[in-house]
């Protein structure tokens, strides 16, 4: 933990704030009232163990712990008819599956369970820390659901009913059936292997009837493995054959069935060899590989699906008869809804009456309210901050939030180019393998008929291209999931491939490298009459009524707030130029140098804004748009990765160059039109560079599409986000460097995996064809190569940074 950061959430502590909570016998600093309250309630409940064992920091607890809006939403959840939708009755108790916001690690799960189980009326609370779901069983006679949820919100966790429709039920079922198959295969294989050891080592002093007995029990134990556990492979093989594209399950199924039938034949007629242990083990390892792939693929999805849950389940519908409260599912497009202050909108719509500020943080991650009035489009998930709004519904189901979630799912589902390539290779490989296997069988049938079957089986098993077809998809899945965890939501699976090739990165300036908000950088006084603070105070009293970025910056610098400031008299505003008024009986002018030159006869120094009285120029003010905190660090890291950075901005050349200077970026191009930006990227691409563009504005749209890879800032415009290959969530820039690293690492891993898989297959094929490879070695070789590939891919997910 660094000095000066919050003990609870590790965010920096604002200047002049002194909040502490005693944890582990030491006062610990807190960054805000929210974190303070949460930490205190954790300590007073005796749950400080949470801090000892957590592996990730907590989320910052913003402002009000339980805002009014949330309380209302909780209360509505107490209604019987709404509870019917998401609760099940278990005798006297009720049970609900809730999705949780704010869970970071296993310690959070423990904290929530402990906290809830101490509440009156809670029968059981179970938290799943990987899918962020809470299963709550409570006694409705003793506690209302809203009370329990509020008490949880006081700890900084938000729980709301989980929409059953969103839950991927089939995934749960598939996962369970895989687990059972794995369990059956594992337990049975262990038995069969023990018998195999007995048969192998005890074969000389064993009576024939005992040997026959051991073979029969092996057959008995192997039967469920072949007939039940291996079932998914047969099904997939049949499907792929029907589609005309034989996949790797075809040789797998042939090998399994052939070996089983031959071994059974040998058992029944007491001739030849049995290989029950090989086929059981083969099934077990194959299942393990498939299970790992399934789980990895799903993990990325589960968290994004939780975003949908934040929407309320009921809305207020406006009808001729008045306002009625109805479930969202009954609302149709075109109907009018009333959105009261503090409420969350559950649908997409257009404002038909009223104007208000709304919080778009669900979509953009920024909590700064945005003004919306009649005719503006609002999306599901926005929170109304001030005035009631009447909204015409345009979309109930396929809302913006839902489409963002889908975006990520599509990225995961879309097959990246390297995956398609690997699939194709594997397909030809399977066909070639089947031909080689038949040729081998024919050759040995004429030369050594008694061994022909087993040699063919060894060929089928050992050269099964499992590792080859797992090599790329597992790496891509792990890479996309790793990107999501660091806050970069990929829209296409190709992104990783493109990121790996990046050697040049271009940033937009305002809103991307900077926050897009101005602050006063320099106050230069020209008379001894007023000091800097006084100059700012005078400027602030002139600007108190104004509403533009420069005025906001002056007010912030003067440390003034709009309510308490002494407003200047006789204010005259010349929008876009300046303002004049009387402060303490003195006429003063504040504005651009041209504005001052027009109104006074002084020689005006060159500043962004100048303050003058009738007697003299009092002061000049300069402004900067400060870069984001981690912009410097980002540029350093990118340089280390061998990516050179550039700024391409529509802003003035001098401002652009100044920022480039601060951040140690060599290339700075200002005064760019969208066409200039496009031309710049094209020119670099002509030289053979691969460009990653990071931008946020409407004018970045074309260049984001043109660049080899592009990332849009989540607070940016819709156009930017739509044109980009990925969206960066949150206000930090460092995930961009992480994304480039993940891209490079993914490419490296794919190369290693393919190299290994191809190399292994090529080495083992001649051995198997020449009959030098017994089936059980073939099984071990094939399984090990698949497992190595999967485990290698998993390394991407555990990458740091």
């Amino acid at each position: 933990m660094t000095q000066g950061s919050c003990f609870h959430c590790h965010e920096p502590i604002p200047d002049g704030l002194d909040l502490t909570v005693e944890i582990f016998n030491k006062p610990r600093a807190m960054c805000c009232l929210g974190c303070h309250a949460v930490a205190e309630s954790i300590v007073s409940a005796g749950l400080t163990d949470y801090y000892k064992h957590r592996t990730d920091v907590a989320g910052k607890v913003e402002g009000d712990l339980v805002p009014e809006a949330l309380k209302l939403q909780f209360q509505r959840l107490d209604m019987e008819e709404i509870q019917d939708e998401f609760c099940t009755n278990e005798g006297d108790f009720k049970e609900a599956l809730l999705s949780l916001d704010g869970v970071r690690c296993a310690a959070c799960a423990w904290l929530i369970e402990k906290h809830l189980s101490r509440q009156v009326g809670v029968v059981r609370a179970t938290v799943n820390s990987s899918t962020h779901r809470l299963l709550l069983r409570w006694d409705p006679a003793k506690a209302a659901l809203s009370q329990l949820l509020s008490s949880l919100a006081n700890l900084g966790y938000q729980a709301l009913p989980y929409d059953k429709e969103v839950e991927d039920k089939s995934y749960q079922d598939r996962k369970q059936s895989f687990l059972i198959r794995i369990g059956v295969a594992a337990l049975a294989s262990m038995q069969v292997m023990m018998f195999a050891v007995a048969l192998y080592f005890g074969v000389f002093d064993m009576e024939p009837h005992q040997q026959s007995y051991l073979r029969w029990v092996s057959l008995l134990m192997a039967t469920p493995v072949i007939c039940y556990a291996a079932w998914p492979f047969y099904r997939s093989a049949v499907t792929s054959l029907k589609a005309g594209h034989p996949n790797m399950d075809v040789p797998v199924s042939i090998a399994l069935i052939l070996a089983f039938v031959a071994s059974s034949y040998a058992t029944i007629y007491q001739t030849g060899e049995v290989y029950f242990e090989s086929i059981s083990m083969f099934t077990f390892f194959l299942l393990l590989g498939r299970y790992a792939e399934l789980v990895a693929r799903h993990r990325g999805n589960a968290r994004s699906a939780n975003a949908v849950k934040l929407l309320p389940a009921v809305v207020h519908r406006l009808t001729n008869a008045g306002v009625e409260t109805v479930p969202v599912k009954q609302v149709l497009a075109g109907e009018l809804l009333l959105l009261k202050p503090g409420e969350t909108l559950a649908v997409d719509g257009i404002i038909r009456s009223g104007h208000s500020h709304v919080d778009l943080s669900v979509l953009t991650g920024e909590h700064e309210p945005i003004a919306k009035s009649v005719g503006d489009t609002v999306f599901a998930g926005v929170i109304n901050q001030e005035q009631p709004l009447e909204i015409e519904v345009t979309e109930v189901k396929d809302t913006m939030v839902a489409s963002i979630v889908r975006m990520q799912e599509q990225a995961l589902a879309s097959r990246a180019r390297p995956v398609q390539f690997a699939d194709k290779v594997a397909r030809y490989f399977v066909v070639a393998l089947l031909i080689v296997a038949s040729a081998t069988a024919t050759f040995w049938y004429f030369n050594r008929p008694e061994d022909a079957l087993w040699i063919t089986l060894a060929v089928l098993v050992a050269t099964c291209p499992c590792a080859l077809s797992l090599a790329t998809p597992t790496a891509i899945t792990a890479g996309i999931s790793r990107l999501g965890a660091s806050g970069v939501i990929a829209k296409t699976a190709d992104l990783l491939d493109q990121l790996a090739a990046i050697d040049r990165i271009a940033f937009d300036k305002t809103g991307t490298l900077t926050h897009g908000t101005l602050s006063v950088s320099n106050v230069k006084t020209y008379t001894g009459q007023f000091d800097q603070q006084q100059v700012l105070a005078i400027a602030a009293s002139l600007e108190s009524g104004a509403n533009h970025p420069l005025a906001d910056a002056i007010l912030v610098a003067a440390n003034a707030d709009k309510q308490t400031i002494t407003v200047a008299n006789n204010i005259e505003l010349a929008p876009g130029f300046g303002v004049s008024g009387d402060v303490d009986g003195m006429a003063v002018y504040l504005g651009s140098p041209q504005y001052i030159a027009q109104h006074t006869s002084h020689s005006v120094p060159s500043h962004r804004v100048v303050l003058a009285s009738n007697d003299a120029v009092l002061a000049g003010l300069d402004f900067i748009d400060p870069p984001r905190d981690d912009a410097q660090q980002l540029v350093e890291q990118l340089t280390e990765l061998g990516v050179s950075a550039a700024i391409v901005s529509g802003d003035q050349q001098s401002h652009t160059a100044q920022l480039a200077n601060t951040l140690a970026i060599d290339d700075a191009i200002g005064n760019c039109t969208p066409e200039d930006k496009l031309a710049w990227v094209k020119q670099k691409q002509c030289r053979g560079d691969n460009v990653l563009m990071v931008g946020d504005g409407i004018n970045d749209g074309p260049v984001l599409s043109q660049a080899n890879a592009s990332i849009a800032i989540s607070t940016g415009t819709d156009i930017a986000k739509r044109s980009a290959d990925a969206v960066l969530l949150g206000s930090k820039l460092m995930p961009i460097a992480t994304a480039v690293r993940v891209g490079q690492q993914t490419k490296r891993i794919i190369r290693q995996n393919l190299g290994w898989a191809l190399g292994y297959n090529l080495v083992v094929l001649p051995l198997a064809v020449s009959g030098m490879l017994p089936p059980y070695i073939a099984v071990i070789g094939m399984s090990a190569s698949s497992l190595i590939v999967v485990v290698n891919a998993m390394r991407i997910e555990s990458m740091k940074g």
Partner: protein
Amino acid sequence: MAIIYVLIPIAILFICVAIGVFIWAVKSNQFDDLERHGTSVLFDDDQPDDKDKPSQ
């Protein structure tokens, strides 16, 4: 070696029971969250409520 005619059926019986238990465990969602319960042993569930006493 005649004993194997008794012991192996018993072993198979055990396996069947084990598979049964495993299926029950999977069906009751005990394998849903494997990250979580590995750390649960670290947490002291019965911490003394009296926090004024110096610990240890």
